[in-house]
């Protein structure tokens, strides 16, 4: 709800995403900040931002699949692996330029997602969670046993390149990832305002009612799988060409659950939630990395066990606490905060 005094005089104004001069100011300021970020950021912050962007693209895909269309996926980490391997094979073995390999990675991942999404035509809820859980294990098995993927040794691939320009420093990769993330956010934002987005939401809320209203449920479920996995494939491609090596161990079940957790923490079904959730989860990751040595000093008896244990414990606890106390996530908390500030000092 826009605050009092903001009103629309025509349809275009009503549909506008950025509505007030203040919002325009913030948007331009933030875009400038992000654009010039590499000129003052250190190596650490640049890599952090790159990983955050990849994480955000991933959660955007899951947002379309889970938040908009209501189809769960426990295999998103492995789907990301499909994108990463596709892109790596296309550039390293077939010599296809990166700019072609990037969308191809997305499309191939989307098609693989369709294969595993196909049972969603017949089953839903828990059963679908199981199919995608199976996808996670089967795909990782395939990565480990195909000759073209290099088996358990993984494979290497070149840096991303646009024409003669090779993106081999964090600053250059930052530009690329940020640009792609921007495009993806724009696409997601507009998807939910179109016919397709409304159809997906109808399928999520009540698929029987949607079918009665003339929404082709099978088509839109599969479409949601395709788009969700397409995003993840793009993220995987960026990941592969940033690290220049792809390995089956980079795509465990652990990450799949982490992406789901990011959606929960941010708030299911909102774009704001998908983005903040990803940033918060990634932030937790950094906090854990910083806190681990201090904790190891504090509890010397646990010593070496702390490093592998603290990540799952913190993430598990965060997701559980959010599910119990704030099931609608940070987005809802933020909206409540905004309205309470707007209405202060009177509650109504």
């Amino acid at each position, binding site marked *: 709800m826009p605050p009092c005094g903001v009103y629309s005089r025509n349809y275009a104004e009503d549909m506008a995403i950025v509505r007030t001069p203040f919002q325009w100011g913030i948007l331009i300021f933030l875009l400038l900040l992000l654009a010039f970020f590499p000129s003052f950021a250190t190596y650490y912050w640049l890599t952090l931002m790159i990983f955050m962007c990849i994480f955000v693209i991933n959660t955007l895909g899951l947002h379309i699949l889970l938040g908009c269309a209501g189809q769960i996926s426990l295999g998103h980490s492995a789907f990301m692996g499909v994108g990463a391997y596709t892109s790596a094979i296309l550039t390293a073995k077939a010599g296809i330029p990166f700019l072609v390999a990037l969308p191809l990675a997305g499309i191939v991942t989307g098609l693989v997602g369709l294969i595993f999404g196909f049972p969603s035509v017949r089953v839903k809820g*828990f059963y679908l969670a199981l199919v995608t859980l199976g996808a996670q294990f089967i795909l990782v098995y395939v990565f480990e*046993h195909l000759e073209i993927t290099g088996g358990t040794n993984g494979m290497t691939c070149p840096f991303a390149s646009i024409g003669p320009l090779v993106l081999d420093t964090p600053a250059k990769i930052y530009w690329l990832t940020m640009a792609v993330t921007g495009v993806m956010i724009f696409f997601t934002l507009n998807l939910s305002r179109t016919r397709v987005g409304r159809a997906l939401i109808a399928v999520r809320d009540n698929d029987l009612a949607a079918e009665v209203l003339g929404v082709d449920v099978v088509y839109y479920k599969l479409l949601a799988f395709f788009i969700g996995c397409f995003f993840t494939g793009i993220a995987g491609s960026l990941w592969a060409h940033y690290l220049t090596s792809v390995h089956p161990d980079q795509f465990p079940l652990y990450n799949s*659950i982490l992406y789901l957790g990011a959606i929960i923490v941010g708030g299911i079904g909102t774009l704001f939630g998908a983005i903040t959730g990803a940033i918060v989860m990634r932030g937790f990751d950094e906090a854990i990395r910083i806190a681990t040595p201090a904790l190891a000093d504090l509890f010397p008896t646990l010593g070496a066990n702390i490093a592998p244990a603290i990540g799952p414990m913190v993430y598990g606890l965060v997701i*559980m606490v959010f599910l119990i106390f704030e099931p609608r996530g940070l987005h809802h908390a933020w909206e409540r905060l905004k309205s309470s500030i707007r209405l202060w000092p009177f509650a109504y």
Partner: protein
Amino acid sequence: MSTFFHLLANGLAVGGIYAVVALGFTLIFKATKVFNFAVGEFLCIGAFIIYSCTVQFRLPLPVGILIGILGGGFLGFLCERLCVRPMIGQPILSIIIMTLALSFFLNGAAILVWGSMPASYPAYLPKGSFEVAGASVGKDIMFCFVGTLVIGAAIGFYFERAKGSIPMRAAAEDHQVAQAAGVRVKKISTLVWIVAGVVCAVGGLFLGTIRGVDMYLPEFGLKVVPAVLVGGLESIPGAIAGGLIIGVLEKLGSGYINPLVGGGIETAIAYIIMIIFLIFRPYGLFGLKKIERI
């Protein structure tokens, strides 16, 4: 042929363990409609408690097993109270993610306490092997198989036939009707989680006996989920049959398919079978055929 019988015996032993743990999963699902994805961690923690008691604290084995089983039950109780009960009435996706987060947390806690080093129980089962149809079958494997089957059959019989489990079956049928008839549904929910914790600890004991205790146990435990699905979600005989089927097919697959594809098929085969079942027979072998329009 002797290879076949060898694989079959090993598969039945592992399948028996899957069957017992699958029972815990099915009981929870029947009574509360909650899917416990943390089942692998229950198994792992139960196995490690027994390991701690017998090896680290040098308690006699029966005492260690008893403490492990009680610990497993207590774990089930805690999880039900702290994680599942606040989620009553939430959408199914939230509950799935809740048990996944729970499995994360328990996994981390297990690593924190026991570390990631593999360990094993002191040998308490007779060594040596039987000769069955030209194949040698370890006595310990035989013992585990019989043990799991006895426990599985006992629990299955209790919940399907015994008089004391009537309220439980009523709660599984319909929460509101059961509540109206004077069944305390919440108490039953707690009870099935405790039972699940106990059977998971037993499964952990047997699995730990066969292949040692380490942090790969949760991944083994998660294979119970395909087993439950193959058997049919609501069915107790189905859980036992599904566990045995998955165990046997997994071992046969590792014996006959691995040489063709270069190893490692046992991590994926259970899920491949599950997906085939989901496409052609989503209600499993013994499950209720629900008509669900999509």
